[in-house]
């Protein structure tokens, strides 16, 4: 279980997160929606401390970290309980697909090389890249790179996987293959928090949708309800702008 309490974040004088509370239960798939600049990516990055919140508390399972004075050990521990899939994949450029997945297992989780390799191969096969083990990131398509990124996160068997707009940098025809992989993982009951613009995906896969705007959570709830009968005007406006049916006028 992940519990965020009163998370506050400033960039300079600009407050991007205002007292955010959010709880994600074990096995839940939560999709965070919102216009750009709404703070959704920042919120996600606060969970594993890639962004340092100015105040609040991040808790994962038993571990609760006060954002006012986190120790290095606490930050490390938060990161070991989570894994992240990045918008721009961020695969280690000097390592092969297999090495990318093994790296965290060997260096951080201290698995024996053989065991790490076995697990990595298994996970890469699961994302459909069993034949690309020795390819370097530069030799893979965007979709393939992102699937390696997902495998890297999955192999760590974290308590939750954080997805930061995993399909935004992809060519349109590559989006499907990546969403398919994420969809399959979701079925396995892994806790996931996903920041995305893919409305169809949110509707089908999410257990809960969180809509953010202006650094606050405007509305959250069952996707069926949010998409069909949003309570808040801001949510309605956003959905109107972003859903394909509304775009014919352009």
């Amino acid at each position: 279980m992940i519990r965020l309490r009163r998370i506050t974040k400033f960039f300079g004088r600009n407050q991007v997160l205002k007292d955010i509370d959010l709880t994600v239960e074990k096995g839940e798939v939560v999709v965070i929606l919102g216009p750009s600049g709404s703070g959704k990516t920042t919120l996600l990055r606060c969970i594993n401390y890639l962004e340092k919140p100015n105040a609040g508390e991040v808790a994962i399972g038993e571990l609760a970290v006060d954002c006012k004075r986190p120790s290095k050990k606490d930050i490390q521990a938060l990161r070991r309980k989570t894994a992240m899939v990045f918008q721009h994949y961020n695969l280690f450029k000097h390592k092969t697909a297999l090495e990318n997945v093994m790296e965290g297992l060997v260096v951080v989780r201290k698995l024996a090389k053989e065991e790490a390799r076995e697990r990595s191969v298994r996970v890469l096969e699961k994302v459909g890249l069993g034949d690309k083990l020795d390819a370097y990131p530069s030799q893979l398509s965007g979709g393939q790179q992102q699937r390696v990124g997902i495998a890297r996160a999955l192999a760590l068997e974290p308590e939750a996987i954080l997805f930061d707009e995993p399909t935004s940098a992809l060519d349109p025809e590559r989006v499907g293959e990546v969403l398919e992989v994420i969809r399959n993982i979701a079925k396995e009951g892994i806790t996931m928090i996903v920041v995305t613009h893919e409305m169809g995906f949110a509707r089908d896969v999410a257990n809960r949708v969180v809509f953010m705007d202006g650094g606050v959570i405007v509305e959250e709830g069952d996707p069926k309800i949010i998409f069909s009968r949003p309570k808040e005007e801001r949510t309605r406006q956003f959905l109107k702008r972003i859903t394909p049916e509304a775009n014919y006028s352009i």
Partner: protein
Amino acid sequence: MPGAKFDIAYLFDYFPKLLSTLNVTLTIVSLSILFGLGVGFLVALPRLYKIPVLRRLSEVYVSFFRGTPILIQLFLIYYGLPEMLKLVHIDVTRTPVLVFVVLTYSLHAGAFISEMIRAGVTAVDRGQAEAAYSVGMNGYQTFTRIVLPQALAISLPVFANLVIATLKDTSLAFTLGVMEMTGKADTLITLGQHYIETYIDLAIIYFVISFALERLFRLLERRLLRHERRERTAGKRFGRNVPSLRGLLAESAGVPKGGAGG
């Protein structure tokens, strides 16, 4: 200008004589680069980690050693260091000149190496470090396993240039009377007045070593950057696809309006 008549026999005669001092030259180069790497890391770290005060000192150090000719640095340290050390009652009048030479070249190379490291580290995408943190690595692991290897691969061509530049700079050590290759050439000339033969030999030796070093580093670079192969060939540039460029130039010559061509 004085000098004996050109005699090709001396080209062959002097060759082994000059080569006999090659080890001195190579010793200066390797020691200087080795110590220079140490100095370079020490000088780069305060700037990479933005440590106040030390960072300023690093900047001044780099600016000075990059901003003055190595020949001046050589004289400064040769004449200045003994006097400075005399103030703390250390006598270095019997210290071999070679020590001063290696010290100067190390400090000089250190400034360039620190810039190289800084540029290399900055060139590594921030996302690489973030990804390392996201799988749970600590700062040290992230730096040594992810950032540094990539930074070194990026820096290798700069490093190769630096090693070759140091090799060429060793020719200045003769001004302090060090018996490296150029110093040896000086003595040969005093003895035989065969200026041109000696300097041609000298040029050939320096060239062969530089050339070999360059090839060696290129091989190494290809190995280290094997993960980048596709990206590197993908860049279509003004001259790299000369045939099509020439095609364009030729095509437009006949047709003033021109077209985008093939």
